[in-house]
């Protein structure tokens, strides 16, 4: 009853075809089949946000999506943030100490990107609400907020 299927995923703009068992999650396919290990597994239950990706424009936990459900959809992961230079959010995290061990960072970057896409000038409270689905154990969050607010400012000034 393996019932493997071919599915198509567009990841960071690139099309892929993968042959998957239905029980495999989008997180598994990204990390194992496509070698995109930037998206992390912290809990597997949608509680920590380390696996946050953007699926057809929606911020989601990749551990809660069956890959087969995502057939035909587009996924953005942390690997797609930088172009020929780092994304302003990535730069801001570096400059403001918004990370320590870094394992939660890809998830935070995706949440921050999603937040700033729809709200380019967030208040501190809006930043906190926008990041409430991502857990960090190292930083105590303060420098993450600073980084996101700084990135927002830089991005507004660029445009």
């Amino acid at each position: 009853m393996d019932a493997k299927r071919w599915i198509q995923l567009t990841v960071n703009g690139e099309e892929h075809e993968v042959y998957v068992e239905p029980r495999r999650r989008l997180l598994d396919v990204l990390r194992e089949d496509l070698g995109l290990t930037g998206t992390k597994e912290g809990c597997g239950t949608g509680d920590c946000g380390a696996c946050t990706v953007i699926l057809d424009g929606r911020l989601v936990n990749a551990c809660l999506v069956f890959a087969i459900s995502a057939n035909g959809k587009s996924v953005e992961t942390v690997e797609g943030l930088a172009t020929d230079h780092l994304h302003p959010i990535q730069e801001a995290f570096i400059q403001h100490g918004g990370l320590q061990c870094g394992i939660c960072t890809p998830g935070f970057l995706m949440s921050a990107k999603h937040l700033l896409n729809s709200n380019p000038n967030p208040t501190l409270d809006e930043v906190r609400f926008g990041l409430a689905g991502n857990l960090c154990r190292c930083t105590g969050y303060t420098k993450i907020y600073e980084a996101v607010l700084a990135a927002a400012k830089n991005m507004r000034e660029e445009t």
Partner: protein
Amino acid sequence: MSEHWLLGKRVPRPDAIPKVTGEAVYTDDITFPGMLYGAVVRSPYACASIRSVDTSRAEQLPGVRAILTPTNSSLFSTEILYAGQKVAALAATDPHTAQEAASLIQVEYQRHRAVFDPIRAMSRDAPVVRPSRSQEFNNVCSHQRKERGDLETGFAQADIIVENTYRVGIAHQAYMEPHACVARFDVSGKLTVWTSIQGQFNVRASLASMLGMPVHDVRVIAPEIGGAFGGKTSLIMEPIAVVLAKITGAPVKIVMSRQEEFIDAHPGPGCIIHVKTAARQDGTLTAEWAEIIYDTGAAPGAPTGNFDRTRGLYRIPNFRYDIYSVYTHKLIPGAYRAPGALELTFAFESQIDHLAGELGQDPIEFRLKNAVDEGDLTVDGKVYPTIGLRESLHQAREQIKAVEHKPHRGIGVACGKWMNAIGASGVILTLNEDGSVNLTSGAVDLTGVNTVLAQIVAEELSISLDQIHVQTRDTDVAPYAALSGGSRTTYGMSLATQNAVRQLKKDLFEFASQHMPVSPEAFTVADGKVVPRDGSHTGIPIRELARIAMYSARGPLTVTGSASDPSWLADSYIFITQVAEVEVDPDTGEITVLRVSSFQDVGFALNPMLVEGQIEGGIVQGLGWGYLEGLVFDKGVVLNENLTEYKIPTALDAPELVPVLIEIPSADGPYGIKGVGEPSMVVTPAVLANAIHDATGIRLTETPLVQDDLSTRQGPLGNM
């Protein structure tokens, strides 16, 4: 402290770049062709004997390659001492199959009576977890006593005595990266293990010993680590992965699930503390007695050896402290950021606050009246040098003056102490032919140490930071380093680096004197050049000297540097005062933490941005242990085994944080630094309890400090 151009600056971490791009490699990111995945079967019962293990259904599942049970492996015992204990393990071709197979292994247990509360476990009729070290009590794993003066006299001199029992719950470090390891034998029989661990060399030694292999045939590589906080110091899955790899001939990866972390990792220990503290009417402390009982679960693990390291804040002429660790049928605790200290600080700082309140004295004034200072005795009878306790209290006092008082709000104060370790530390420093420098370290970079080491080298050689390339390498390549933790990493590794770079300069100056008419002692460095101090020569760029040396009879300039101390602890006294502002809903008891300020003596902040990060992270972890977190058990089974039910602070819970760095240089620390990784968490539950008391008049004596207790124990506080 002379003017530094790079030390003391807010320098971003170079390792932040691969972390923000997703390129940084953590253990679970590593795969090999043909790699198998391990899964573990665990006991659902706290105390039992295994009657039989039936693996037949698991064996039949396609993709299962090896199964280990108590029958065929000494890694597993038939005697179960805690729910969650490993009973069997297997390797399969993919993680889903491995998990499915594990659920197909059938184990028959015979259950026995169990004991879960440490006080209960001490009574003579309690079930025996392990033989007791005490004649008087059952299940005692260890006992120490510390005494000074005469307790009876001390209590007799007192005008007021306050006695309480405090309970601190078991808190998990909840690092975002669960334990993971990969084991692989190569064709020649040499073993390589990648593991998420704080100390590579310990793992190498243990595995070599377990396998009867020489140490040089075992290579341990620590990839990037996703948080540890003391919870990744000992082997957990590595032996299983190694044995499975040996049997199957394939690389084996085992990753703990979040649920497994909560039921069988090594959380911070729970503790019950009975304490009696006495003072005169004028506020001077006269005596203190405490019985401290750490719950060490099913085996030795509770860190009981840090009493002296964390206590000794006040002049108490008469004291007796009895410190026990007691076995129960629960998982085995370990170290969580200043091991054993938070529990003690919670009790003793609540006591001080209680006493001050009873005497009608201001909590800061009361502490200042009794606070130790230079010349006073430590708990173990040493003499304090210049220390920062009073300074931190003074600064806290200033801050509190500025706080506006509002209804239902409270302000709390608490103090703490820690001492950092040193540990064996070594580095290799190589000057490349283009003048850049490679620094090879064996210490896992938990807290940004590699950034600081680069700053040190750059500063000492007066070359730019981007010329320094620091890497943590594995046990085959790097010099020995004790595990990263104990607030020792920056301290010990900086010492080693300082020694190394000064040796490098010496060698450079020796070499330079062959190329300039200057004697080696007359040289210094400036702007990336070796120049004579008297300006008698324009100097030669370091890069040039390196190139010449490389291709000459001299050869490449490479040095080693090391630091160690037989006593493990540095004489580096770190004092902290924290201030917490909270609001308590009078009808629901809901606790909102508004702001936590921390006044911590850091000696010298080599990189203030990193130091603040450590302090901020520690405070929020302390808040978690203080009012949100705690493993909940039912008959020894963990009920809240996921991150929904085990509640660590989210972005919306973290309050405003104000980390204030006080710098009182340490005598022996490089550039006067003191360790910063651990201490900030130690004080926070106590300061929370004190703030809640200030807001409500209710003293909560058990963590997590919950609104439930506030509302139900004393009745509704408000007027509805």
